């Protein structure tokens, strides 16, 4: 019997674990280690953050789902990986610390034959003074990164709405809380959902809404923007994004590294090196992401973390980490099998793998401060790579250790993305987009880097319907209800 251990139970880890359990059957063991008791459909946190969904609607308990799938579940966080075992055994293992009520803090070693690292990110609030600390979100801003954060954000939002109803003008500042953030899309959705809700509450004219982000242009979204076919033109996402901001009367600050947050005020540095301040009554700023801080130890007890992980804490895989300057970047720099180059039985997928470099062109201020989005590895690509990695591991267990690995390069896959701009069965809108490929390939698609036959976008009610259907579809899939394997990632 072989044992696969999956670290993380988010989109990528859950996909990998559930498909592996399905394909391996009861002859082999799948173990999931995740510190969370609940699974969260994160894209719908936006709607929790404006009071249009409850926490219960976007989460469910993991334990019964894993019990049904025959997956052994540890509610715990991984502390370290020992890929060579220790002085008494050659069997590799991970060290975990329980987060389960009644067992919190208990340490346990779990041996593995194959390991999939899909831990997702650490929300690095501590990177920006005032945004938060090592323990999480601070007191000055809100977040929609977790369901609990979104519940808190909604409470604060409604305090502002009550003030506006009493005639007190409010300033909203939404965006990214550091120069190296990703997930601009979540902030984009949140700012327009807030605008939509303020309209519904009849207080839009009492609100000043402003965007602040590390993108060098609106519509970058961490993928260097995209060109979409519209009206016979290949139109930049910059035009579409600016159009929506203008239409909804939302001003913006871009190319900004938020370097300090105080009560009611952010301090920022722009790409031109100038410094600025912006006041707010309500602010949701996405934190930068980092690896979760896993340690790696070899058989001799030596720390080999720097061998296994990149400096940002994400696990190295089959990517080209020596690409150098932007001019040298190629689509082939991006990993395809997600296998760790040092230990062939370790893989990393989703946000947990170390990308070779950003997708957006790297930029910095004259002061040397890097200000550019880091690459997104969430949503559909995250699920696809989780499934591919699970397939590789299952083949190696069932066929043999030399079975070929499955590939899922972000440079060869597309993504469908639906960004909500307001919820409502007949009044809602969302930007429905596809992008192909996610990582631009300027050799294959000169100019835009992408195939404009398969890269498109439009905003409307249909997009909202799709986002709402996807909410129910993916929760159905994640709960392993009938037909779940037929629903694509």
């Amino acid at each position, binding site marked *: 019997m072989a044992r696969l251990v999956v670290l993380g139970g988010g989109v990528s880890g859950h996909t990998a674990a559930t498909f592996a359990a399905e394909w391996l059957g009861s002859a082999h063991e799948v173990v999931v280690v995740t510190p969370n008791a609940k699974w969260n459909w994160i894209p719908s946190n936006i709607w929790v953050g404006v009071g249009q969904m409850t926490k219960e609607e976007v989460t469910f308990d993991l334990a019964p789902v894993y019990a049904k799938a025959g997956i052994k579940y540890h509610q715990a966080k991984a502390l370290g990986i020992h890929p060579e075992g220790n002085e008494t055994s050659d069997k590799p293992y991970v060290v975990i610390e329980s987060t389960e009520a009644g067992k919190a803090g208990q340490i346990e070693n779990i041996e593995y034959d194959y390991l999939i690292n899909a831990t997702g990110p650490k929300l690095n609030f501590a990177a920006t003074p005032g945004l938060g600390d090592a323990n999480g979100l601070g007191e000055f801003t809100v977040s929609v990164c977790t369901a609990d954060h979104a519940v808190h954000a909604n409470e604060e939002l409604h305090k502002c709405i009550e003030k506006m109803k009493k005639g007190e003008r409010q300033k909203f500042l939404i965006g990214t809380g550091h120069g190296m953030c990703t997930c601009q899309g979540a902030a984009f959705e949140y700012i327009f959902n807030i605008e939509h809700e303020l309209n519904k509450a009849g207080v839009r004219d009492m609100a000043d809404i402003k965007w602040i982000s590390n993108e060098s242009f609106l519509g970058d979204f961490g993928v260097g923007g995209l060109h979409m076919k519209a009206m016979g033109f290949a139109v930049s996402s910059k035009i579409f994004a600016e159009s929506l901001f203008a239409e909804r009367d939302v001003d913006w600050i871009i190319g900004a590294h938020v370097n300090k947050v105080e009560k009611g005020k952010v301090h920022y540095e722009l790409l031109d090196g100038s410094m600025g301040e912006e006041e707010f009554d309500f602010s949701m700023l996405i934190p930068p992401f980092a690896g979760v801080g896993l340690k790696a130890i070899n058989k001799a007890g030596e720390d080999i973390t720097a061998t296994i992980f990149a400096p940002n804490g994400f696990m190295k895989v089959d990517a080209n980490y020596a690409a150098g300057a932007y001019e040298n970047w190629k689509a082939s720099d991006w990993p395809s099998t997600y296998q760790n180059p040092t230990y062939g039985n370790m893989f990393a997928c989703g946000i947990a793998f170390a990308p070779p470099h950003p997708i957006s062109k790297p930029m910095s201020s004259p002061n040397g401060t890097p200000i550019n989005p880091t690459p997104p590895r969430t949503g*559909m690509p995250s699920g696809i790579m989780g499934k591919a990695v699970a397939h590789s591991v299952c083949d190696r267990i069932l066929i043999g250790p030399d079975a070929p690995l499955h590939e899922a390069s972000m440079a060869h896959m597309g993504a469908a993305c639906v960004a909500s701009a307001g919820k409502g069965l007949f009044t809602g809108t969302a930007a429905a987009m596809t992008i192909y490929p996610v990582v631009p390939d300027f050799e294959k698609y000169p100019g835009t880097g992408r195939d404009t036959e398969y890269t498109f976008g439009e905003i409307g009610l249909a997009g909202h319907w799709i986002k709402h259907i996807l909410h129910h579809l993916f929760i159905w899939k994640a709960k392993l209800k009938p037909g779940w394997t037929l629903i694509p990632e």
Partner: protein
Amino acid sequence: MSKYGEKNIRAYGNNFTTMTPGPVAKFLRTNLIFQAIRFIIINIKMLVVVSKSH
């Protein structure tokens, strides 16, 4: 005729060089018949990209 988006343009401000939707574009965004058709078309387009990505 509604000038829904145009009224927010500020001369030589951030949003001076972008486009804004006219009343027809705005109407079609939430028109049930038009959006039902777009729903089908968008789903087909997304399924094509999904199938190319697996």
